[in-house]
């Protein structure tokens, strides 16, 4: 790892690079957690996606925009964003086919997120919500892709000005 991080002169000191490389997966897991529990707790697709994007922004700061672009280029991030948007709208359109109307919650009662929670307070049953968790994931993908692509593009442009 040290060889790779020392390889480029861009970005901050090796200490910052190593530490941000280490905590990157943890931030991503937290992002995933917020998205996953979007239908139960405060947060959701956008908030979790913003956390995920902040992890990529941290890499841009630590390793420099050019180095980050080699691993996760703007094109790739945009594609990721498009896939998120397409997934969202496809799930909504599936409502036509699986149930009566656009955006019908056709997963209620099925095995995937279909459990109907008992009345009253509960600690939060994850396997509920129907299509909502899937839509949250789609929004999360869109936000991670879009937000980090925007920051990356701005970082690259401001580099060119120097």
């Amino acid at each position, binding site marked *: 790892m040290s060889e790779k991080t020392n390889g480029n002169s861009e970005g901050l000191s090796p200490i910052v690079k190593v530490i941000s490389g280490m905590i990157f997966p943890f931030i991503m897991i937290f992002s995933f957690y917020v998205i996953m529990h979007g239908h139960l707790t405060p947060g959701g697709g956008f908030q979790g996606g913003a956390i995920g994007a902040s992890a990529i922004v941290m890499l841009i700061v630590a390793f420099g925009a050019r180095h980050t672009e080699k691993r996760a280029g703007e094109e790739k991030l945009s594609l990721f964003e498009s896939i998120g948007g397409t997934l969202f709208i496809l799930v909504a359109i599936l409502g036509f086919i699986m149930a009566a109307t656009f*955006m019908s919650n056709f997963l209620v009662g099925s095995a995937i997120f279909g459990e109907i929670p008992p009345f009253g307070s509960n600690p939060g049953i994850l396997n509920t919500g129907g299509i909502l968790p899937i839509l949250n994931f789609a929004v999360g993908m869109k936000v991670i892709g879009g937000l980090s692509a925007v920051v990356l593009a701005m970082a690259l442009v401001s580099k060119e000005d120097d």
Partner: protein
Amino acid sequence: MNVDWLLTHSPALLIAIPLLAAFLTPVIDRINKKARDAFVIIVLIIAEIIMIALAWDVFTGSAHIYTMGASNPTATIPSQAAVPIRIVLEVDGMGAFMGLISTTVSLAAGFYSLAFVKKETGQGRYYTLLLLMLVGMLGMEFTGDIFNLFVFLEVLSMASAALIAYRFYYGDAVEGAFKYCVVSSLGALMVLFAIGLLYGQYDLLNMAALAKVIEYTTLDKIALVLLIAAFAMKCGAVPMHMWTPDSYTVAPAPITAMLVAASQASLYALFRICFSLYGLTLDVTTVGIIIIALGLLSMFVGVTMALPQKDIKRLMSYHAVSQTGYMLLGVGVGLYLLGKSDFDTYGMAAMEGGIFHIINHALYKGLLFLTAGAIFYKVKTRNLNEMGGLAHSMKFTTIFFMIGALAIAGIPPFNGFASKLLIYESAYHVSPILSIIAMLVSIITLASFVKVFHSAFMGPPMENAEAGEVPKSMIIGMAILTVGIILFGLFPGWVVSNIVHPAAQALAAQAGYIGSVAGGA
């Protein structure tokens, strides 16, 4: 998947198909550029066909109601609740009428863009945003939920702002986009605040359910002021018109045509708020006079600002402000007379005139902006003093420009004449001065377009311009709008009774709007 199924689901499909296409466009763009162009055009054609079918069904039958996510599209009120909770799309005559405008202008802009942006970078994103603009417009026009209206307003504003700045290497494009961005965000915040005021009082977001219980309290009045100011700003009425010339001028020509339709979506929202949400609970005389005053100001200030302009698109942008004034005048007169005994005699005619003018304006102003784009495509300047003699080499563009210019000046047999005549005749009954100003503005409009025609198309051919006509796809785009202008001009009677009258009727009859969603008024 038969025709009935398609018609029932068409309000949702019209939003879903362009939205899906918008997200798929960047993916297809990575695979093949030609396939992407074909894909965008096919989607726009499909949207146009579905829209015509839906509009025909609405004009001949009744309003279409679509409840998102319900077990049945017409089940607006869930079994456990007393009021509509889900997002409801309500396509009545007026919504279908506006939808027709949006899809038609988008189709023309789509064809025109194929050649117009061929040499630019980032075309995948251009078409994504173009489709998102269509989604925003259709969403604003179809939705029956006031918060949903705000969401689609934002979708439309963001997509438009990015497209205005598309040719970012021109400094003024970025400036125009920034101005548009600031104005739209301000307008959107005002709308959001007004929605908050209404929601806080009535716990409702559905417009029909709100209209049923609205009381015109002080808070409702504040909300009304915020909504009228925001939407009047977004449709470019004087004195909130400062963004219009800046952003219309610098946007790529097909986007300017789309922006005209987008401004009209805001105009539609303004009318929808006044007629369907507040209706007779508001002080129709005062609000009517305010809208008439906005209309007169826009008409007069717009046209007098247009006269001295040397930039062809800037001149046309000021005319767009001026023509918006006619729509505000026509519908304002209708609002002024709403509930009075004279409404059925000439109030309705005024509304028909104002609403007919919306579609006419979208067609001829869209066409004029496209011809201005064609001129820019060939001579690379928008300055009227630096061009001339284009009629020698650009035959089609010359003919299209003439038709557009005669239509905007209200010369028979083109469509502008029919709608302006309706406005003159009916506004005369309220006050003769309204008609006199309207006619005067029309004459100045003709004068300024004579100037443009003379300096751009007449005279000896230019020496340093590349000769020849613009590419075929641009001609197709302009021809789509020209055919509309000629048909609407030749058969105004048929259009008014079959398309415009149902739209005006839908706006005027608030009980019908409420009844179809929230039960008996």
